[in-house]
């Protein structure tokens, strides 16, 4: 099998073949999820713990549902309100959990690299559900699956990523994934929301939305991360909407069959026009949510297979 990783920490560590493996398996889980009986036993007997150091409703629900449909015992730790606030360090929390023998640990944390740090200290498979401004791999994978199903391929497309790129881990993971799959990437943002050095990532940069959207197959909008802003990145939300909010007029510069994506939750009237977001002929935003569950099922299934194989080898070792 062409997926050998122990953890899923980021897209950076995945090969194109591994990405395709995940997407192929996720396609099968999409079919399962559309049946009346949605259960599988891929994770039967395994314990999945969701640790969200940052608040999340959508991603946590998606991971929880994915685990339950695969038969795992799922526990949610609302870490934001626990001992972490009493001064316990991330490592201590991880070691405490590790002692409970979980098999899959789904972690979101506000600091870049925190999930990598945690993964180096525990004995189970770790899934990164978003770390700071670094990576959000399952989001990029679900976006890729959505694009592949809508466009029939995930290569040689012109894809525009628009909005608050500087603060977005979604943008980073997508940049890496879509670049690995050999697409033409454009970043559209006000220069204050463009990360430094991004011109070396092999993408085209635009601060004019209309020029950037010209001929695009896919338009990926990002949420304006109000909570990550210290202020002063943009003059006002209304000026931002005027220059960078996606509406029908700006979208008309993209290809006629271009699809519109958004990782959610949306700020309607800030980065995207509400009506456009709901337009089933252009918007695939609801599909993204559906693909999210399937992609997370695929990722956890693959990691669990590797985990079981590793434990099997270890058991054989002890018998000898």
């Amino acid at each position, binding site marked *: 099998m062409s997926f050998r990783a122990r953890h899923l920490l980021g897209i950076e560590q995945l090969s194109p073949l591994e990405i395709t493996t995940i997407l192929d398996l996720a396609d099968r889980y999409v079919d399962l999820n559309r049946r009346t009986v949605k259960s599988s036993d891929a994770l039967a007997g395994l314990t999945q713990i969701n640790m969200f150091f940052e608040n999340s409703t959508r991603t946590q629900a998606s991971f929880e549902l994915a685990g339950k449909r695969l038969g795992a015992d799922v526990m949610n730790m609302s870490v934001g309100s626990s001992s972490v606030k009493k001064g316990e360090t991330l490592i201590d929390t991880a070691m405490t959990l590790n002692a409970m023998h979980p098999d899959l640990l789904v972690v979101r944390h506000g*600091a870049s690299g925190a999930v990598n*740090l945690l993964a180096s200290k525990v004995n189970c498979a770790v899934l990164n559900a978003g770390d*700071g*401004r*670094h990576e959000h791999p399952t989001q990029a994978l679900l976006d890729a699956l959505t694009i592949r199903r809508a466009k029939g391929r995930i290569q040689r497309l012109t894809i525009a990523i628009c909005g608050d790129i500087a603060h977005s881990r979604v943008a980073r993971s997508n940049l890496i994934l879509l670049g690995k799959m050999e697409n033409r990437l454009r970043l559209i943002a006000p220069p204050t929301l463009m990360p*430094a*050095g991004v011109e070396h*990532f092999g993408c085209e940069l635009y601060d004019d939305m209309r020029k950037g959207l010209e001929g695009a197959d896919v338009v990926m909008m990002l949420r304006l991360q109000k909570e990550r802003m210290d202020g002063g990145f943009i003059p006002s939300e209304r000026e931002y909407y005027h220059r960078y909010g996606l509406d029908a007029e700006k979208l008309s510069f993209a290809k006629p069959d271009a699809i519109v994506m958004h990782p959610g939750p949306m700020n309607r009237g800030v980065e995207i026009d509400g009506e456009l977001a709901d337009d089933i002929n252009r918007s695939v935003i609801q599909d993204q949510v559906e693909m999210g569950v399937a992609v997370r099922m695929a990722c956890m299934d693959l990691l669990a297979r590797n985990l079981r194989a590793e434990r099997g080898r270890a058991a054989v070792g002890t018998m000898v």
Partner: protein
Amino acid sequence: MTSMTLHFTNARLINPESGTDEIGSLTIDNGVIVALDDDAPAGATEVDCGGHCLAPGIVDIGVKIGEPGERHKESFRSAGLAASAGGITTMVVRPDTTPSIDTPEVLEFVTRRAGEARVRIRHMAALTKGRLGHEMTEIGFLLDAGAVAFTDVFKVSSDTKALSRAFTYARSLGALVIGHPQEPGLSVGAAATSGKFASLRGLPGVSAMAERIGLDRDLGLVEMTGVRYHVDQITTARSLPALERAKANGFDVTAGVSIHHLTLNEIDVGDYRTFFKFTPPLRSEEDRMAMVQAVAEGLIDVIGSFHTPADEESKRLPFEEAASGAVGLETLLPAALRLYHAGQLDLPTLFRALSLNSSKRLGLPQGRLSVGAPADLVLFDPYAPYLLDRFKLHSKSKNTPFDGCRMEGKVLATYVAGQAVYQG
């Protein structure tokens, strides 16, 4: 302190004053160098150096000791052991302790404690009370109590008016001020140098330009007040023209650089390795090369370890939250020798930056291989290879970025005032 007469023979004498690197002999008596390339005096003990290098001991400006406040991280005793094992014969220690060294009383306390170190200690004091950047300290009293320089270390005041007063007052006393060039607003929350690498890792970055802007401000104040000024660390190529201009215009300005910014770059952070987190953050390879060049040309005067002990807890955190800095007393010389082995700096140039210039800047007699100079010496084999194991370091804290690295260059013996304080 008295000591016997030693006659070092067959030594590769590294003389930063004359810029020479030649086999010869050196005689010390009663704690001072008494002869170069002379016959052994009667009764002298001969030390055969076996062709290894004998250089003036390192005078390291900017060493952090955990006294007072953080003795579990480093004490004068443990730092002294580490320094002697690293060929450092004078540690010039920082006032960013808890509390800050900002009164003559605290300075007298640490001066007493410093007796536990087996190498020489010189103290720096804070420039402003609590290093808060508002009110100047008792610069006069602190000078009388032995402070050799005044610095708020990595805390940069945005109160330029208060700084201008402190600089003016310091000038009237002839005191040396050491500044940290960084525009405080730009560097808020930064953990890396902004650019491709920081963006890829999702780390909050600071533009290299923040150093230039901070330096320009300080050099403006130097021009305004005429104070004697030393820049603790120049780390980006963009700062060099401003420094060059200030020197050319005759201002009393010198500059340093940390050994880590001369031997590592931002990519070394890799997968969020917190032992590679520094203030200022590691820079690009182009910047590193420019710093090496600036040391070779003498534009940057001093190389220091910026020894900053940090315990395991403060480093075992997500990168943004982890403490900055690394221990460096024992790795300063072997790391600096990387530049020698790479053919970028010869040994006299290296010791000009490690020993001579730092001594000169502080008005100390050390750092020279000349008759009458203190017999503070380091004997080392620049070619001895080894793998660095951080748990073998003498420092109480083990936060070194060189853990597991192949190093070349070992200290064989360190002498302070003619006494062997370390023998490897």
